[in-house]
């Protein structure tokens, strides 16, 4: 039992937990990972005994402040807890989790208030060959490097679009991987155009430029990967230049040999838990007010589940949420003056996040490169041709109908990987997919849950 259950031990969740605990709130932080830190501050497995984990990180001092504040704060961190659902009941909330890594043993955490700080995951748009071993998401390569101190190969192309590609390229390079090219679809001119709003981001950008130079990374902007080659594993990629409309310029294709492709096209928020709680979404993100409250009483959200904006924004939002929760649980009206500094940085960082988002759109005509035989749904092996048939011949007009007709999105990942691609190919907008659970749940656990619910209902 806790006053507050925080789901997600990334920057947002930890900042909130510390802010609330400082006001006397009992906090339990639940995370599926084996260590706290989230994506940005993902820690090496303790068994690896890394003496210099900061070599893989940026803004390490911020992490040290969070980490060092935790032991004396009274915040309980429950790692290896995979949350599959949060339930509202008469006296608060029950967070249902499965203990990892096997995820068979259920546990429940009860709390009066809940903060959803679940972050996001990467969006990758398909292209021929993207299912070959050796093709990984950019953030995935980063996560495996930070946590497992391993790299997927010797020579990599880092490609796609978005601010994540730079740290991934420099991180892999520092870890000994030769970076054959950094292929960015966006035009650096667009970044300059958004320069004002990005003022806080650009020094970091300049720092990366120096590091790219040091590692002799060739930057190909306004380029894209059109195909990954290989039979049993990746042997190379074809890259091509994009014109101003985002179309591949014919005749610019060239082959780059590599054993690894780290690719990503931005990020998407995790919204499943918010959806099952009935929280209002704003497009693909959890809608919150100035205090980071969702429209469901007792449920707050902070960090990338409320919009993609990086670790700094997650920290600011988390701090505000923690303060608001502490006041509300004590039955008092919070005073925003208490978090004025965090609110100021939230405003600034949201502006630069919006500018980054505008400057790094996925290539507008990416679907033209997707051949009919390209697998789009990786789990169920549904091809682009099948999706196109469902739309053109069977008249499917939304992702759900395409799913019913083709099984795209019905596999293990519950459509997280193929959702954006299916929506793009079907020519409709990506909408949240209303998953009943945030994680696949063993039937035995569900049956037991039902049993308990029924018993409680009849008693």
């Amino acid at each position: 039992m806790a006053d507050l259950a925080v789901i997600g031990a990334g920057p947002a969740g930890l900042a909130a937990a510390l802010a609330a605990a400082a006001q006397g709130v009992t906090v339990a932080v639940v995370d599926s990972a084996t260590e706290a830190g989230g994506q940005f501050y993902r820690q090496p497995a303790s068994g690896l005994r890394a003496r210099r984990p900061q070599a893989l990180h940026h803004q390490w001092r911020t992490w040290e402040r969070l980490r060092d504040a935790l032991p004396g704060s009274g915040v309980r961190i429950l790692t290896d807890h995979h949350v599959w659902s949060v339930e509202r009941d008469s006296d608060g909330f029950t967070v249902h989790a499965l203990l990892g890594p096997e995820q068979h043993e259920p546990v429940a955490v009860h709390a009066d208030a809940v903060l959803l700080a679940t972050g996001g995951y990467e969006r990758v748009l398909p292209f021929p060959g993207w299912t070959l071993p050796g093709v990984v998401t950019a953030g995935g390569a980063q996560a495996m490097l930070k946590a497992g101190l391993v790299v997927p190969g010797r020579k990599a192309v880092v490609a796609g679009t978005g601010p994540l590609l730079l740290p991934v390229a420099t991180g892999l390079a520092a870890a000994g991987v030769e970076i054959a090219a950094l292929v960015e679809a966006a035009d650096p001119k667009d970044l300059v155009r958004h320069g004002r709003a990005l003022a806080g981001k650009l020094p970091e950008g300049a720092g990366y430029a120096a590091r790219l130079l040091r590692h002799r990374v060739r930057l190909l902007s306004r380029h894209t990967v059109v195909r990954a080659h290989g039979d049993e594993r990746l042997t190379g990629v074809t890259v091509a230049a994009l014109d101003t409309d985002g179309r591949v310029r014919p005749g610019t294709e060239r082959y780059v040999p590599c054993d690894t492709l780290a690719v990503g096209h931005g990020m998407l928020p995790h919204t499943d838990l918010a959806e099952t709680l009935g929280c209002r979404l704003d497009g693909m993100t959890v809608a919150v007010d100035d205090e980071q409250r969702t429209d469901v009483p007792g449920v707050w959200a902070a960090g990338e589940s409320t919009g993609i904006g990086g670790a700094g924004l997650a920290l600011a939002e988390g701090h505000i949420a923690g303060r608001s929760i502490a006041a509300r649980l004590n039955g008092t009206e919070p005073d925003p003056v208490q978090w004025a500094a965090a609110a100021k940085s939230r405003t600034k960082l949201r502006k630069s996040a919006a500018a980054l988002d505008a400057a790094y759109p996925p290539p507008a005509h990416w679907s033209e490169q997707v051949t009919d035989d390209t697998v789009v749904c990786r789990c169920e092996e549904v091809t682009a041709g099948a999706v196109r048939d469902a739309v053109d011949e069977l008249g499917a007009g939304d992702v759900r109908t395409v799913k019913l007709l083709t099984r795209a999105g019905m596999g293990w990942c519950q459509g997280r990987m193929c959702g954006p691609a299916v929506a793009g190919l079907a020519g409709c907008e990506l909408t949240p997919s209303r998953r009943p659970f945030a994680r696949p749940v063993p039937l035995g656990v569900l049956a037991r849950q039902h049993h308990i619910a029924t018993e409680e209902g009849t008693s």
Partner: protein
Amino acid sequence: MRTPLELADAHPGPAFTVTLDGREIEALPGQTVAAALWAVGVTSWRSTRGEGRPRGVFCGIGVCFDCLVTVNDRPNQRACLVPLHPGDAIRTQEGTGHDG
């Protein structure tokens, strides 16, 4: 050339032995199945149900389920999440992993 272990100045405890389809490989304490397999140059350990295509890590954070593997006779474990222990038997997985 610099390795990730050198970069982070890691001093893990002694490596231990696990098996991949009966073949002995070394793993470091704390490493997941996927990390240990990457460290010995293995990037695929599953073939898909439909086309029998090879797969390994894709998302690296437990979201995509591409990295499914059989560990100690339990199929469909996510290699990117499951940490290894001495003597663990990793088996590459075909199709659903339930048909032997």
